[in-house]
């Protein structure tokens, strides 16, 4: 299982700050996004804007995620 931290509107529409997704070696960020939306359809309207961070850095759609990675998913940032 991969534990994915959610923030801001992504957390709000899912309703919880962490979700679990079954995971195996060799899968990518894009596959994670699709799995998230499948499990939590509320994320569908924002999928094109969703960002994924792996081990505290932004990860591109074709990046691999390993089972032990620290993973987060959130909309574009708006701090400051």
């Amino acid at each position: 299982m991969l534990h994915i931290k959610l923030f801001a509107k992504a957390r709000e529409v899912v309703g919880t700050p962490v979700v679990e997704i079954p995971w195996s070696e060799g899968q990518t960020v894009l596959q994670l996004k699709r799995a998230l939306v499948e499990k939590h359809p509320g994320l569908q309207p924002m999928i094109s804007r969703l960002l994924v961070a792996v081990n505290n850095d932004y990860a591109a759609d074709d990046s691999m995620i390993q089972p032990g990675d620290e993973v987060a998913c959130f909309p574009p940032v708006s701090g400051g």
Partner: protein
Amino acid sequence: MIEMTNAPIDYHALTESVRSSQSGAVVLFLGTVREMTEGRRTVALEYEGYPQMAEAKLAELESQARSRWPIDQVGIIHRLGHLELGDISVAIAVSCPHRKQAFEAGQFLIDELKVSVPIWKREIWDDGTTEWVHPS
């Protein structure tokens, strides 16, 4: 000093922490909660952050700034949680030998913070509605 905090930001202590006799210039930037945005009235803002990654990203920004300007000291504090009108959401202090460097580095740090540091804000409007802010 890089810090995410739920407490009010002590920008005076932050500024003192970057002062040095090796530097002729200190620039401090404060972001504060503004009431009016395009004709709409804000009553408060809520900031949410991913503190661990935010601190890592701010440390990266500090490194990038240090590679471009001869920075002496730099300090960045971002507040999270519920902020009222006029409250300080972010403080960035930087000291450099000369003033132009300090202005440029300070502006770079706040510009980049808004682009890459995982923090989100939600407007609480005076009609009671709330809205996650989209970056412009």
